[in-house]
């Protein structure tokens, strides 16, 4: 809290600088107002991205500079901006006020609270548009970002500072993966470095955003999360700005050395909003009527996901952009763009979802280009075998469809593959600790579940986890360190499974 004397002193200093300092303003006249995009004459001194103010305190951002006029994107309501109104430059670029007070809050892309609570306390003004950190400031991804989802942590691991795309048709569980990941960031021990989460809802129904907030609240995840919402009923300008506001908030915490996770849900709607703005701005339309700089729109956003080196505070921003496809078409314009920008993708499929494989991740088409380096030795030691088995299973399963007689070895491999897929199933909102993930994967990869029926897997897994927590807490403790399990630990895990199987009541 600043005391009165300091405030007065600061004001006196401020007053001293005012003397003899004329206020210079660049003033223009509104010529046209089309769907929230204003054409104004004058404003000869304005620059791209400058914040301008209208007569009734509405704000706007300069997006086009032409010979005789400028195009301004209004922020918020623009119905009452009329031809002939004056518009003034402010000399500032669009920024959002961020302080620690923003944690647990729901805000719009301008930083105004949407949760009915008080105004966000004054902190730092973070620019929405910023050039991403350069190569000198970065370091390779090396720390894992645990999602708590077995299939991801074992097969397609994500590292802090990575950009991993979640792509799939509607209703395939894309948001569920993102929400599970946020829930899993809850700090379980003081040793663990917490991850601050920013969930950016772009063009979504208010009811969907309310559900997400409710879910995060139920799991206690709101304490370390921020929600930036620009709903379907909000102007396209707010939808366009939402992901930039999200990353600006993330940068505030990253600069303080924190690890941040940003979920952009979803960038397809973001591209639609930008297309709408561009068409109103009369920018030339290209493929699918998107403007020429649609690639840059997403690349400059996702480039801001970074793992900073020690000299720069060692903070990180991990980005999980979401893209919605139509009829599994990942070769459409926006999906291919974002696939090429990101460091891998989680590909979700409708048929897997309908067959009860949830999360419906197509392991074959999903990749993580840098996450492998971030995987802990503990999970790496068990997942390597599983990856191979799954690949073999997929190959064999294709041949087995012909119905020819199969030798016992092939049949056993097929059976193991089915069980591996079964163990990777996981209910929504139940992310697992890494130690428990390792136990499940170890059990299936080493054939301890070969005699367990598929339909009993879920029950077996839950009860086995409880059993280990109760009777073998040392195993959990050892696996939580992330170190490769020793011979002794492996023997102990084997003993725990055998012991549990004796008591497991099928």
């Amino acid at each position: 809290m600043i005391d009165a004397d300091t405030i007065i002193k600061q004001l006196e200093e401020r007053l001293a600088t005012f003397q003899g300092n004329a206020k210079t303003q660049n003033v223009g006249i509104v010529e046209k107002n089309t769907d929230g995009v204003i054409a104004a004459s004058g404003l000869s001194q304005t620059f791209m991205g400058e914040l301008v103010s209208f007569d009734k305190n509405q704000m706007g951002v300069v997006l086009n500079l032409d010979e005789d006029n400028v195009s301004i994107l209004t922020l918020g309501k623009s119905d009452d901006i009329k031809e002939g109104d004056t518009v003034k430059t402010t000399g500032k670029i669009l920024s959002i006020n961020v302080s620690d007070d923003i944690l647990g809050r729901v805000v719009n892309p301008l930083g105004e609270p949407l949760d009915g609570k008080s105004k966000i306390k004054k902190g730092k003004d973070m620019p929405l548009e910023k050039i991403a950190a350069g190569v000198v400031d970065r370091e390779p991804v090396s720390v894992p970002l645990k999602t708590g989802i077995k299939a991801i942590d074992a097969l397609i691991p994500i590292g802090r500072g990575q950009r991993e795309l979640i792509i799939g048709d509607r209703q395939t569980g894309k948001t569920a993966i993102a929400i599970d990941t946020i829930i899993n960031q809850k700090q379980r021990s003081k040793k663990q470095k917490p991850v601050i989460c920013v969930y950016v809802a772009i063009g979504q129904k208010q009811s969907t955003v309310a559900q997400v907030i409710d879910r995060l609240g139920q799991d206690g995840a709101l304490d370390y999360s921020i929600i930036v919402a620009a709903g379907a009923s909000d102007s396209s300008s707010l939808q366009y700005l939402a992901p930039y506001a999200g990353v600006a908030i993330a940068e505030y915490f990253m600069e303080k050395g924190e690890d941040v996770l940003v979920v952009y849900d979803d960038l397809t709607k973001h591209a639609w909003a930008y297309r709408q703005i561009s068409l109103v701005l009369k920018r030339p339309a290209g493929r699918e009527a998107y403007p020429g700089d649609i690639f840059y729109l997403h690349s400059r956003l996702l480039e801001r996901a970074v793992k900073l080196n020690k000299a720069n505070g060692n903070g990180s921003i991990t980005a999980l952009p979401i893209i919605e496809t139509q009829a599994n078409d990942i070769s459409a314009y926006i999906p291919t763009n974002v696939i090429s920008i990101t460091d891998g993708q989680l590909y979700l499929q409708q048929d897997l979802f309908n067959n009860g494989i949830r999360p419906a991740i197509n392991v074959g088409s999903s990749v993580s280009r840098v996450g492998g380096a971030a995987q802990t030795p503990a999970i790496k030691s068990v997942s390597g075998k599983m990856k191979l088995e799954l690949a073999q299973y997929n190959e064999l399963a294709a041949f087995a469809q012909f119905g020819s007689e199969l030798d016992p070895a092939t049949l056993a491999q097929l059976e193991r593959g089915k069980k591996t897929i079964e163990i990777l199933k996981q209910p929504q909102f139940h992310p697992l600790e890494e130690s428990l993930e390792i136990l499940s994967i170890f059990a299936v990869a080493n054939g301890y579940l070969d005699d367990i029926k598929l339909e009993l897997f879920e029950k077996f897994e839950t009860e086995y986890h409880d059993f280990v927590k109760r009777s073998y807490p040392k195993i959990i403790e050892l696996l939580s360190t992330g170190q490769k399990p020793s011979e002794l630990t492996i023997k102990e895990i084997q003993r725990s499974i055998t012991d549990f199987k004796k008591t497991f009541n099928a």
Partner: protein
Amino acid sequence: MNVKNIKKLVLASYIDKKLNPIRVNKIAGLLARKDLKTYIKTLKSYEKKNTVIINLPFLYNDKKIFAKMFKGKKIIYKEDPSLIAGVRIINNDIVYEHDLKNTLEDIATHIGLAYD
């Protein structure tokens, strides 16, 4: 007719930096309605570009200083008593403002932005 040509016509409407009514009438008579509209608009903006409006709390006789500052431009002086110990100069789309009211407003804005 495109805007570039209309701009040329606007420049041709001036003789010795003064708008010539004979030329203006002649040009206006030859233009179509749409072009005439653009011509008037461009003429207005050209006039605005070459005019400086100076608001002072009271009109005093020594105006040389401003004439020196804005050489070749038409200067219009206006009296505005609300400008306490200050001046407001409007040069096309740039407004220079220096008065007590503005200074106080600046302090208020600063307080609003810096403190909760």
